[in-house]
């Protein structure tokens, strides 16, 4: 079996260990004998490369880089990513990317910045005095009841619309907005999350879910991945609980 992962804006939207997600997806495919390739999609890459891929990842960014990537995403790549997500292509949107796929991001001053409208959500930055939501975070995935662990660091507060389900329930930390107790969102086979940077290494169940979904969509059959020895992954996971 073969899998192509599209990594959107690796040079712009990869702030703090986002690469960990790509490393983990790649290795976990290779361990199962899946022939995996990573396509780096950035400003100059044509959308035809994007359309050939089976799994999408997009990470966090700093303000300046976010502006550069945001303009390109809205104009060029976003509409195709939306089409792919609608078709069931699995995707992982982390941090800034999670904000990007919503309807808009409203800074504490100035006009809202439009998003790609892939997820029914919006994000607001309450004021420059508002505390950034920073720290270790633990949540429970609603569908599987399994925990996820990570680190969050965001100023924006994200609110989900009625056409979108939350990904997990916050156990420790802030999550989407620090108010409603939810973290992230799932739409079809796409996940959005505020767990920034390397979300997948300590949460191998999420990595495998994405890989399995990608193969199922591509080959049109139910896929059960070969078990892998995840002792170390779960040890690091439990340590963060």
């Amino acid at each position, binding site marked *: 079996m073969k899998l192509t992962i599209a990594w959107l804006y*690796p*040079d*712009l939207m*990869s*702030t*703090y*260990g*986002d*690469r*960990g997600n790509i*490393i*983990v997806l790649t*290795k976990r495919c290779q361990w199962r004998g899946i022939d995996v390739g990573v396509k780096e999609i950035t*400003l100059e890459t044509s959308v035809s490369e994007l359309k050939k891929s089976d799994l999408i990842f997009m990470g966090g960014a*700093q*303000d*300046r*880089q976010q*502006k*550069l990537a945001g303009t390109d995403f809205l104009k060029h790549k976003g509409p195709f990513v939306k089409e792919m997500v609608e078709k069931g292509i699995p995707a992982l949107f982390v941090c800034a990317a999670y904000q990007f796929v919503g309807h808009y991001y409203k800074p504490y001053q100035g006009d809202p910045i439009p998003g790609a409208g892939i997820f029914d959500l919006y994000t607001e930055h309450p004021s420059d005095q508002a505390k950034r939501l*920073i*720290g*270790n975070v633990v949540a429970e995935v609603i569908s599987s009841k399994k925990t996820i662990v990570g*680190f969050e*660091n965001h100023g924006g507060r994200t609110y989900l619309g009625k056409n979108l389900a939350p990904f997990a329930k916050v156990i420790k930390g802030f999550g989407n907005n620090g108010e409603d107790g939810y973290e992230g969102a799932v739409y079809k086979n796409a996940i959005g999350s505020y767990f*920034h*940077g*390397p979300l997948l*290494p*300590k949460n191998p169940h999420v990595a495998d879910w994405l890989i399995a979904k990608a193969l199922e969509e591509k080959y049109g059959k139910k896929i059960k991945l070969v078990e892998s020895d995840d002792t*170390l*992954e779960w*040890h*690091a996971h439990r*340590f963060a609980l």
Partner: protein
Amino acid sequence: MLHIAILLGKLVSWASKTFGLGAGATWPGEIALRLNPTILSSLACNLKKGVILVAGTNGKTTTSKMIQIILEQNGLSVVHNSSGANLDNGIVSALIGKSNADWGVFEVDENTLPSVISVLSFRPKSRNPEKKQWIPDQVRDDKRTIIVLLNIFRDQLDRYGEVDVIAQKWEKALRGSKATIIANADDPLIAHLGLFAKATFFGINDKTKFFTTMEHATDSTFCLNCGSRLKYEGIYFSHLGIWECTKCREKRPKPNISDGKSPLPGLYNLYNTLAAMSVAKILGIKADLAGFHPAFGRQEEVGNVKIFLSKNPAGFNQSLRTVLELGAKNLLFVLNDRIPDGRDVSWIWDVDFEMIPKDVSVRVSGDRVYDLALRLKYAGIKADIYENLEDALSGPLYVLPTYSAMLEVRKILKGRKIL
């Protein structure tokens, strides 16, 4: 009030050293600052020639020590925050001990730099009438402030915020300052700051040192001026190299200083050396660093253990490359997630551990030992896990620790954390 603050500061310094409470590097200054918030500029006014501030993500401690040594070799007396306490309380603590030196040489924390610049910039009083900040009445035109800007890399985003935010704060602070600026031409972010400040530039002009592939942990590969992608003739490491914007033509300034021999291995120490030599050139004095001994925890040797402080992706990659070039066969990585390290350990996924050859044995320890072991597993390396740091410190070893881990390693090996 000034004298009371200084006296009390000295007393606290004596007490904390005598009773083993600490190195006396921050508390004396903290207490003196609370009694007298303007004590920093009052004390700095006693310096005979001026102050030299050293800022940047990596290399502050080593570079400021190099500058200290150069000045002392030229018969000048120096007060220096050698313990690495680089907030205003650390600088005040150093000055309380010895404020009548010729020069103050201070490494300054990234976030603290703007406020320290505004307090310590010696400049004529009359030029700045609308500024509300307190200007010492002893200000004299014949004293100088020199600011050395080394680099900005991604580091502890949870604590420092984004790279660009720091650069913006620095730019604002420098705009109001009459200080002499020394800037790294090879770092586009720093060079951009230096261009408007009419800086003296240092940089490396040696194409044989170009790195063949680009590291992932790069921060400033887009033009600060117009936002287009920068083109590199070559990269030395991270985003440092010979760069040019293909659109607006902003480009790496020609360095005024580019020839130097580093007393320590690693390309990053060549940058530190060139920065220190730039200070010497501006002051018209000789620079001889041949016998330079590294600062604590920075390539420091304790018995058969060599400690290379490594606290962010750019620094870690450089340390790793350097120890491998030195022929290291046994490595120990120690990862803590305490306040001085940054609580977020995500950055280890930006370190290129994949460069470690198969015949090198790797140990891991620290608060987040399992995060490290997991990162290494995905780099194809099976690391030996030591929950107890003391057990890991045996035999000849190159240790790459985060900041608080470095202090712990020193405590175990030398019986003390800092100096």
